[in-house]
């Protein structure tokens, strides 16, 4: 069995008196697609925020180990450093750079993998020109992969919703992650778009050889893509296992269908 690339040990997150996450234990293995599911308000997005440095968890540890690298404790680390380490995310409520072009959005993603500074920008020396050309090429390729290349020079805010979601994925991939965190990527998509997205997620794993942690409400998508599923309810991890195990777990059924139906 391969090493976990992400190991989360008992993290909790309190907001004032409210405990949004309660001792969550979760791991993602190399090359795996793991899903995090649960009703609205269960704490899934909060979990993402905790492991990407946007919030600092109240207690617990977040350990990452890029392939071949040593495990590193990252709680409390700044979000940009987490990204630099190789965890990239998308946002549930799309956060693109609205008045920059689609291509520029992706180019921003390469920021932590490029180096040129003020001097390079002003003199446009050879290293800078080369780096810029590489950035452009890489970004175009990512847009091609997402089927967005014809929109390259449009402003991101003018894209339709489903395409904005795909652009967010392209931007996250541009940071060169080993673990991609997707927060409800299919939200607001129609069934065809969701189908295409499912293929895309599987394709991304193959092509980039990365692991994916996915928050999703669409059960068909979760069941057909994920290797393992973690279920949150009221900030607690109530079950985890293969999709099949989880879908037969009484606690999960109860959480999803409500008390009445179960009884």
């Amino acid at each position: 069995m391969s090493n976990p690339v992400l190991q989360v040990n008992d993290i909790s997150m309190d907001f004032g008196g409210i405990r949004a996450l309660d001792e969550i234990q979760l791991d993602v293995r190399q090359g795996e697609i793991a899903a995090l599911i649960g009703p609205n308000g269960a704490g899934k997005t909060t979990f993402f925020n905790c492991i990407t440095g946007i919030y600092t968890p109240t207690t617990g540890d977040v350990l990452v180990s890029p392939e071949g690298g040593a495990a590193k404790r990252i709680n409390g680390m700044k979000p940009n450093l987490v990204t630099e380490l190789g965890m990239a995310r998308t946002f549930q409520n799309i956060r693109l750079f609205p008045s920059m072009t689609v291509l520029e959005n992706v180019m921003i993603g390469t920021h932590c993998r490029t180096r040129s500074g003020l001097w390079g920008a002003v003199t446009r020396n050879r290293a800078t020109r080369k780096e810029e050309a590489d950035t452009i090429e890489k970004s175009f390729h990512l847009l091609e992969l997402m089927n967005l290349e014809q929109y390259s020079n449009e402003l991101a805010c003018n894209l339709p919703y489903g395409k904005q979601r795909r652009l967010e994925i392209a931007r996250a991939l541009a940071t060169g992650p080993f673990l991609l965190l997707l927060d409800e990527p299919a939200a607001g998509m129609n069934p065809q778009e969701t189908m295409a997205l499912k293929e895309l997620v599987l394709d991304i794993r193959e092509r980039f050889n990365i692991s994916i942690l996915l928050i999703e409400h669409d059960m068909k998508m979760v069941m057909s893509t994920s290797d393992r599923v973690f279920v949150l309810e009221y900030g607690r991890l109530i079950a985890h296992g293969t999709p099949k195990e989880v879908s037969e777990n009484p606690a999960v059924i109860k959480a999803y269908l409500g008390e009445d139906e179960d009884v």
Partner: protein
Amino acid sequence: MEYFLELFFGGLTRGSIYALIALGYTMVYGIIELINFAHGEIYMIGAFTGLIVAGVLGALGFPGSAILVFAIVAAVIYSAAYGFTIEKIAYRPLRGAARLSPLISAIGMSIFLQNYVMLAQTSDFLPFPSLLPELGFVKHFKGILGSSDFIIIVTTIVVCVALTLFIKYTKMGKAMRATAQNRTMAQLVGVSVDTVISVTFIIGSSLAAVGGVLIASHIGQINYYIGFIAGLKAFTAAVLGGIGSIPGAMLGGLVLGLTEAFATGYVSSDYEDVFAFALLVLILIFRPSGIMGKEKIQKV
């Protein structure tokens, strides 16, 4: 000791005025998260309205107490009207715009109002009649506490208590608190957010007007520029207390007033404003949520 007490009461008077203005900043910020940069100008317009009304009534031979009442009432009405109008013109069309847009609009409004008053009236200092009556019993505190100090401090306390009761017990007050907490939810349960925002501007502006007339009468002169510095200091007071918090604004005003009074009294009067601004910078750096404010984690 006497000097200390003199400084203390001087600081209290000053702080009371800051508190009255700070309440407007804090209430507006609590509800629409905007630093209403033009609020200092509302205070200035209050003072000018008071001066004009007092001038007209004085020329008509009204008695002093009637002049005081009319001047304050007119100042309150006009400041409230200006506050209401400014919100409609400069802020309401910008709801939902980028965060800095209303702030820039507010700065523009502030510049506009200053120059409007300067051009329509004068750029010189105008003497302001002393409208506040001499109180007999204050004589015992000669050299420490003047009549107008006493009146200002007491008025501020009364106004603050009234405001607190209003916010706590009236329907409108409850709607205001609900809107401050969560605008969308408030709207869903039937609060008319537009009305609440308008009322907030009206109340905040009225308080500033009261402060404007009182302090102008106490100091004895005004010009079109007084709102800028007073506004900045009142904003400092609001932040000091924890912006969005009403008791915080009062506390912040008093703390700032006292700090200034003692700093100028014991250190140097040249740097009076430097102390205030330095205090502002330091608070924002070390405790941006203020004395009474709560730390908030931005929701992502």
